[in-house]
């Protein structure tokens, strides 16, 4: 059996790794290079503090995989588990309370924390800036070594990774996928995995398959290094502003993304202004520091917030996308699921692309 994976982001790589482990011949096609997609541009926030049962399960499994696989790959992902902190205005606290009940019922360690206690954990935090928060399992991972580790791990298992190889189309016969078109060549394969993130809708169009994921653009920046003082990953769900500190001491932060019409990674001054205001309100001492570098990334979100994973009406064409702003927390487990779908014909109704053919089930949660 031969499988082509489109995209060398975390989703494509973890899928390829799981398939290759089972002896499948896998080739990954990557339009640019690794790290080009959202997997090389994100803020590395990892948590099980999700608002859906399915997502909590995927996140738990993914953290376990990260823990185990670093040794296997001989790569240090710099996964610092100092907690994940969600803060909010009074208006949004109810949402956090509700998801906390779900998380606890599934064994996730999470507790409410008041703004003054936050200041004890994060020196310099302004308790006036929020009404409350919840702190729980998670932390920050460094996305680049994660990707490089998976690249190494895949290569060792014989996965071929083709950079600068854009997939331009497919060969289809009688409703069955037969091959992938790359660089004026058609490569015969039994399955294609669409793990192209924000480009997944475009790839689906090339295959004549409907996919209703939205494209989200998110901007992010780095403030000069400071001695580590921000232990947890901090996300303000009311303003969308998030802040964390890397192992190098750089303060990394951004504003949760907005829908875009196409995968566009341009940077804007407007973002920097909004972020500066929001970040300095939470941690005023950031005011005196400088922004060194800014960039943007794009990812894709499904209509109901759950990933889209499964074979489509086009036999052999498998979706593995729609991970939203949680791809780093979910993708290692998604790779295992895709392998089970391809090798064992297993079906996961909750993630199946066909769930959107029933309009009454597409309401946002």
């Amino acid at each position, binding site marked *: 059996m031969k499988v082509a994976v489109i995209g060398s982001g975390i989703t494509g790589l973890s899928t390829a790794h799981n398939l290759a482990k089972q002896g499948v011949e896998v080739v990954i096609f990557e339009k640019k*290079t690794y790290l080009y997609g959202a997997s090389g541009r994100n803020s590395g926030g990892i948590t099980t503090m999700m608002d859906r049962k399915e997502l909590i399960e995927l996140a738990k499994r993914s953290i376990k995989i990260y823990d185990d696989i670093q040794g296997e790959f001989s790569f240090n992902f710099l996964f610092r588990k100092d907690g994940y902190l969600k803060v909010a205005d009074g208006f949004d606290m109810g949402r956090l309370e509700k998801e906390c009940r779900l998380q606890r019922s599934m064994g996730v360690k999470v507790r409410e924390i008041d703004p003054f206690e936050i200041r004890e954990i994060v020196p310099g935090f302004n308790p006036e800036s929020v009404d409350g928060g919840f702190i729980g399992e998670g932390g920050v991972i460094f996305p680049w070594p994660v990707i490089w580790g998976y*690249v190494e791990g895949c290569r060792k298992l014989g996965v071929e990774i083709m950079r600068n190889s854009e997939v331009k189309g497919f060969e289809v016969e009688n409703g069955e996928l037969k091959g992938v078109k790359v660089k004026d060549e058609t490569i015969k394969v039994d399955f294609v995995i669409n793990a192209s993130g924000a480009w997944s809708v475009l790839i689906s169009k090339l295959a004549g398959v409907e996919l209703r994921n939205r494209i989200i653009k998110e901007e992010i920046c780095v403030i000069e290094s400071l001695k580590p003082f921000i232990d947890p990953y901090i996300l303000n769900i009311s303003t969308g502003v998030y802040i964390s500190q890397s192992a190098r001491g750089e303060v990394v932060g951004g504003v949760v993304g907005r829908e875009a019409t196409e995968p566009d990674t341009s940077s804007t001054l*407007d973002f920097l202004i909004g972020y*500066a205001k929001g970040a300095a309100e939470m941690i005023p001492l950031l005011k005196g520091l400088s*922004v060194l570098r*800014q960039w943007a990334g794009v990812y894709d979100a499904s209509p109901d917030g759950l990933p889209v994973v499964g074979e489509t009406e086009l036999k052999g064409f498998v979706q593995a996308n729609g991970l939203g702003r949680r791809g780093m927390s979910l993708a290692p487990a998604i790779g295992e699921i895709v392998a089970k779908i391809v090798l064992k014909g297993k079906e996961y109704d909750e993630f199946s692309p066909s769930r959107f053919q029933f309009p009454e089930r597409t309401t946002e949660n």
Partner: protein
Amino acid sequence: MVKNRKIVCRCEDITEEEIIHAIDEGYDDIENLKRYTGVTTGFCQGKGCLMHVIRILSQKTGKPPEEIGVTTQRPPVNPVPVYVLMEGEYK
């Protein structure tokens, strides 16, 4: 010993040997080489070292510099303090 240390990136203190080692390990496109070694990411943001890195990559891989390309230049051109940005009007 010291004689053999050819510094390519002065901000991050990275030698030619380290860059060649990274290329041998498979970080052989400019964007991954940058992130793996840290070259071009320091205070000068590549103004001093990028050309040398491209030369080394070209010599090692046999690819012409045009094919190697340059790293994406990220704004701002120079560091900007947060208090200055805060004065801006958010649309």
